[in-house]
């Protein structure tokens, strides 16, 4: 049983005990523990259940690669599923729950899957669950989903905050082990701006742990000393930024690095954001990301108590935790001997070291023997005994089929299948790998590196991440590779004499299956991917069935698709696949490495953009008045516009009717400030607008306004609005609210990229002006009370504009109308919008003046048969469809969209055309309804002959009115069409003129 040792633990502080709960049980640990080390110290070896078979699982690793020990962390608004116990720092009051079991971790009904495992090989679900057809949705899938899944579902809105940071550095060093520290110091001394990040809470990485076992020294001093020295050096360099608890999540094109800093995961009571996402641009990146140990594939290698040799060592050296009293070590390399030595030095027993190599190990093996440890070469583990805890192992010959030579009782197994460099970041952005035959791993192929914007290498691997596995080599490689990155940045490197003294190691020997000739029974119990329950037999099955590509095998078996993304399993899996296919491993290749390196919180990705800050909110100068006066808002792009202003007890429809009736009978006000306003100025401004608008703008006289249409070059109507000529060289183009930015961009695009020799400037002044429409028969009377200027029809006729002073404010008044009423659109500098608004309300009080919202605006324009961009148009409509031929200049040779409109389909007389629609019973036609025609088309769909584009209840006419596009519509006045609803009803409507109100336009022209 695992327990806390009485001494040792370089990372824990025994003077600071901490208490936490696991599945509700109160437990103890120390400051510096991870949750995994604290659980082990408390005798809790079993920490979870596997995904598919619900097998009992213990912790197998000590870092980011852990596949088994996943917990639900925290409660309520701070709950987080799938947290790795190995990377969770213990804090006082931590609460964790194990996952994927019911009713309890100890007794899990889902473990029935384990009994039936033989019937659930890889991909069994592709071959079953097909009959009867409805059963997948109703029966099988719910069972599959419930038994799969993993963590519990967070229930509450996230109680934490997150933030983003930008970082710009010459060199980013990823990894705070020996290599990263050496690289960062060299770059710091070269005067570069450096960021060094380490994902754990400690500098130094593995080297100090290894040194604790083998006595290695650097510059004749303990390795810990060098770490301290460099960290102290870095702290004195103002050009070097260092961060613990920060991981490089991904490397993206052109030197973009995504950093993930966990600020308060270890101290939830601390103020500030929980996570910080760094968006970093780096000139060069050094990946000193170390290596990850591989498991060995033998039967029962997933039973709690079987652990990576390196993890076993970490728990003893770093946390003073023993994984068991009797630890069997099984290996194919020298490194695992360090574990045996560490176990022995901690006063625990190592009954045997099982070395699969016939020739055995080197100096470290001798050191182990000298400690009295029994070492057997050419041996293997045939099988591990135990269910929820290791009880013993059967030993056999590695070369054989598993005939048991000996049974050995033990409560822990430390395994090592060799080491794989962490090549993820190298690979994210196109770095290629090369197979290192001697060390049986993929390492970066530095001749095929990720390339930056200038085609330069921008990622350099260093140390173990580059395949250097022994301390001396690691230090030498880190120095050399850092030098390359620094030189690429134009820096110079001073030689740093660092000499290591560590035991020499003899070569490892690849062992992909243990024993080599293991039969099907053993292979079915030899795990590759722990979390997803993929075994050696599954990969072999995939190969047998023709899923030969490594991607096929991955997807068929789910190998490497769990939350650890195959950090432990991928190399072992593709070795098994290669063997099954009879091809060398490099020919099989790897699956693609994708960001993030380990999972990062969605909250961090979103950053501060939540709730009210989700998107910027644009406010008109009168926004606060609308808010205070109970506006019901309608989002329009990033603006909000008042839809209507309901009064107490009033429905929205009633409010809209009231607003329209008031406006039509007396006077109303509209905040029209969101309308786009673009200044187009210069000697060629008229010529330019003639190309942009379908009608002629160059002939417009200063002081006059003209309604214009804009089409895309593809012929479709994209925007409309009134153009006012301010002076000979200056036009003011009004656009729709949604069009302000896009139309301005459209203008600039044509000006800059096609007609760049034309002398024209544009400026989007939308937000510089507040614009208020004063609308209704009393509009002039209201305005006149605020002005001494003449606003009569003679001096300011319809479709003219002039500058006047209103309530002491200089204003532009445009006599334009989108309602059919006498209407003045008044523009004043934005800062004076509210003052004018209030003055108008005051001046109009005697006429009962009130504001109206967007819905009243829509209804009134529909009563007049005016089109609305986005209603009558949808990106597929051309002006000809809307009978707007009058706005298509015949005099111009060219305008944007003209050529397009000459194409056969656009010139087709059978295009649907705009008409008015009036229901026979006065009801409102359903929005978006289609008019049906006879029969069905060749795909069996009901034929149609038109559709509703706008439909409203008109309070003015007290009936439903609508506009629509209908086949040959204008030629079919009076015909009745049928519009089926979605509820089985059919509405009948007559084709009529789209102008329902004041057909001759007398009201607006007074």
């Amino acid at each position, binding site marked *: 049983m695992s327990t806390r040792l009485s001494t040792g633990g370089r990372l824990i502080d025994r003077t600071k005990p901490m208490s936490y709960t696991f599945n509700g049980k109160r437990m103890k640990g120390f400051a510096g523990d991870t949750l995994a080390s604290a659980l082990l110290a408390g005798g809790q070896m079993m920490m979870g259940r596997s995904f598919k078979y619900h097998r009992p699982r213990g912790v197998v690793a000590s870092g980011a690669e852990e596949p088994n020990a996943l917990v639900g962390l925290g409660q309520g608004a701070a709950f987080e599923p799938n947290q790795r116990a190995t990377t969770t720092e213990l804090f006082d009051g931590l609460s964790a729950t194990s996952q994927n079991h019911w009713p309890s971790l100890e007794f899990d009904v889902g473990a029935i899957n384990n009994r039936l495992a033989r019937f659930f090989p890889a991909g069994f679900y592709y071959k079953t669950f097909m009959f009867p057809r409805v059963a997948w949705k109703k029966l099988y899938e719910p069972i599959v989903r419930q038994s799969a899944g993993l963590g519990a579902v967070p229930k509450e809105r*996230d109680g934490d905050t997150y933030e983003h940071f930008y970082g710009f550095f010459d060199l980013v060093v990823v990894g705070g082990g020996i290599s990263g520290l050496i690289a960062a110091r060299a770059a710091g001394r070269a005067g570069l701006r450096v960021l060094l990040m380490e994902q754990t809470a400690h500098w130094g990485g593995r080297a100090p742990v290894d040194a604790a076992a083998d006595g290695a020294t650097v510059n004749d001093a303990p390795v810990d000393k060098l770490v301290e020295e460099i960290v102290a050096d870095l702290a004195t360099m103002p050009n070097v930024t260092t961060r613990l608890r920060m991981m490089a999540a991904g490397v993206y094109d052109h030197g973009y690095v995504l950093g993930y800093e966990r600020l308060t995961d270890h101290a939830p009571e601390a103020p500030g954001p929980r996570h910080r996402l760094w968006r970093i641009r780096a000139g060069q990146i050094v990946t000193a990301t170390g290596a990850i140990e591989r498991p060995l594939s033998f039967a029962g290698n997933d039973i709690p108590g079987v652990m990576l040799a390196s993890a076993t060592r970490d728990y003893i050296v770093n946390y003073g935790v023993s994984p068991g009293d009797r630890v069997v070590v099984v290996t194919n390399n020298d490194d695992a001997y360090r574990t045996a030595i560490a176990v022995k030095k901690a006063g625990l027993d190592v009954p045997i070291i099982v070395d699969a190599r016939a020739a055995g190990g080197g100096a470290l093996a001798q050191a182990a023997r000298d400690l009295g440890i029994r070492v057997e070469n050419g041996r293997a583990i045939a099988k591990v005994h135990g269910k929820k805890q290791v009880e013993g192992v059967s030993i056999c010959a590695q070369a054989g089929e598993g005939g048991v030579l000996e049974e050995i009782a033990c409560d822990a197994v430390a395994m090592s299948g060799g080491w794989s460099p962490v090549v993820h970041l190298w690979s994210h952005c196109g770095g290629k790998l090369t197979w290192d035959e001697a060390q049986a791993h993929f390492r970066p192929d530095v001749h095929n590196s990720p390339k930056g914007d200038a085609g330069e290498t921008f990622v350099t691997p260093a140390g173990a991440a580059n395949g250097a596995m022994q301390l001396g080599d690691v230090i030498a490689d880190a120095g050399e590779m850092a030098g390359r990155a620094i030189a690429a940045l134009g820096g110079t490197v001073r030689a740093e004499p660092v000499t290591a003294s560590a035991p020499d190691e003899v070569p490892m020997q690849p062992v992909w299956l243990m024993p080599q000739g293991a039969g099907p029974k053993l292979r079915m119990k030899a795990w590759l991917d722990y979390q997803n329950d993929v075994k050696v037999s599954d990969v072999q099955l995939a190969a047998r069935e023709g899923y030969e590509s490594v991607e096929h095998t991955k997807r068929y078996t789910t190998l490497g698709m769990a939350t650890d993304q195959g950090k432990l399993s991928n190399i072992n899996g593709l070795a098994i696949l290669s063997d099954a296919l009879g091809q060398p491993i490099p020919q099989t290749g790897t699956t693609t490495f994708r960001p993030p390196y380990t999972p990062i919180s969605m909250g961090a990705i979103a950053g501060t953009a939540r709730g009210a800050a989700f998107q910027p909110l644009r406010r008109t100068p009168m926004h606060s008045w609308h808010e205070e006066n109970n506006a019901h808002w309608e989002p329009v792009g990033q603006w909000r516009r008042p839809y209507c202003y309901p009064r107490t007890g009033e429905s929205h429809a009633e409010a809209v009717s009231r607003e329209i009736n008031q406006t039509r009978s007396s006077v109303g006000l509209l905040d029209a400030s969101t309308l786009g306003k673009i200044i187009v100025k210069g000697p060629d401004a008229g010529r330019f607008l003639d190309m942009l608008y379908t009608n002629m703008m160059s002939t417009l006289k200063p002081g006059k306004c003209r309604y214009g249409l804009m089409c895309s070059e593809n012929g479709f109507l994209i925007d409309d609005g009134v153009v006012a000529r301010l002076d000979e060289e200056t036009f003011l183009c009004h656009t729709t609210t949604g069009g302000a930015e896009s139309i301005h961009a459209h203008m600039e695009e044509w000006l800059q990229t096609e007609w760049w020799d034309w002398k024209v400037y544009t400026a989007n002044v939308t937000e510089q002006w507040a614009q208020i429409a004063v609308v209704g028969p009393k509009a002039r009377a209201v305005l006149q009370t605020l002005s001494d200027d003449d606003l009569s029809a003679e001096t300011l006729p319809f479709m003219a504009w002039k500058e006047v002073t209103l309530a002491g404010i200089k204003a532009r008044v445009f006599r334009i109308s989108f309602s059919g009423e006498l209407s003045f659109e008044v523009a004043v500098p934005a800062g004076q919008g509210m003052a004018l608004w209030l003055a108008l309300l005051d001046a109009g009080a005697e006429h009962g003046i009130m504001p109206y919202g967007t819905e009243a605006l829509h209804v009134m324009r529909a009563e007049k048969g005016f089109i609305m961009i986005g209603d009558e148009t949808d990106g597929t409509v051309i002006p000809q469809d809307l009978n707007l031929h009058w706005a298509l200049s015949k005099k111009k040779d060219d305008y944007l969209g003209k050529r397009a409109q000459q194409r056969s*389909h656009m010139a087709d007389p059978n295009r649907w055309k705009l008409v008015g629609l009036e229901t026979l019973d006065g009801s409102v036609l359903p929005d978006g309804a289609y008019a049906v025609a006879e029969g069905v088309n060749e795909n069996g769909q009901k034929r149609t002959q038109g559709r509703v584009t706008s439909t409203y209840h008109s309070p003015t006419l007290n009936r439903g009115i609508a506009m629509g596009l209908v086949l040959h519509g204008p030629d079919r006045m009076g015909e009745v069409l049928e519009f089926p609803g979605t509820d089985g009803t059919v509405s009948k409507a007559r084709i009529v003129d789209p102008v329902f109100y004041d057909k001759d336009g007398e009201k607006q022209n007074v």
Partner: protein
Amino acid sequence: MRRYSAWAVAREATRYHEGWERAWRAPEPKKRYDVVIVGAGGHGLATAYYLGKNHGITNVAVIEKGWLGGGNTGRNTTIIRSNYLQDSSAAIYEKARSLYETMSQDLNYNVMFSPRGVIMLAQTEHEVRGYQRTAHANALQGVSTEFISPQRVKELVPIIDISGPRYPVLGGLWQARGGTARHDAVAWGYARACSDMGMDIIQKCEVTGIRQEGGRVTGVGTTKGAIDCGKLGIVVAGHSGHLAEMAGFRLPLESVALQALVSEPIKPCMDVVVMANTVHGYMSQSDKGEMVIGGGTDAFNNYTQRGSFHHIEETVRALIETFPMISRLKMLRQWGGIVDVTGDRSPILSKTPVEGVFINSGWGTGGFKAIPGSGFGFAELMAKGYSPLTAEFGLNRFAEGRFVDESVAAGVAH
């Protein structure tokens, strides 16, 4: 072909599953085929399958430069729906959706079609009107959809926040028989069925040239030698322009990266697919428990299968706004696929200027859901020279100005 069934699995279990045969053969190419399909993704394999099943044409090779199903078939977010606005789109997507219903049984391969329902959220008045229009159109197209209330949305998706401060949910377009399927299985199931019909699926074989005589195709050059054919179908997604160039014509296509991501798996919490076009995000939960999230496309040409991270940020931001609880989930993996996008963002299923050469491409962000319908229609087009399903998707539409524009209904990738 040995049939798959629970019984077969049980029988093989007694032999440690060592008796299973290959799902598809691995043949060397013959000298000549009646039809060569280039591209063994979902669309190419489905085309071959329906050439055999519906038209009796089985002397067919499907050649693939990588491995079958290795392109966008295995990189999408697996959504299946047919609630399209335009008749021609609705026809082919609904055909596809209905074929998905029985695909597992037809192919004897469980593709796990899960008709769990798809909601497209309406979060502006404009969207409300747009989806009401789509619902009306769908009713006449024989596509079963309905416009539902915010309360019904909340019932279907308990984890949603319908009162979001910026974009409250105003309703939704609900297609109860939309859903998801296991993407890889679609390619594998078709491959197995095609192989069983005697068709040759030739992987790791790249086309190096297209041979023609008198304006008519006669065969292809490949890295495994020359192969003669009577007809040639080009079904290669992001590489269409490259193949078209070999045949001597150009396409109205550009290739861009589309991104997606998944969270770590959690227990079932969302039983339907939700698409939120205003805030640009969509999400479903896989059978494994991962939240599968679709992101946006880059606006620049790109063949790297990597996208820009700011799209991921935008998508996640939007989804947290709609589903606050996902803030505490973690992103497990993000990836990109290369999609080819046409001028009207609708696909091309068409004859070409070279007689006997047909092209199926331009599916943009919506290809997976169309696979069986696309194969069904494209096979008919190749076999008979005409298919009502593909009639509106010809190359000639760009010259005529006759577009199939769905951006009216959905402005977001799917």
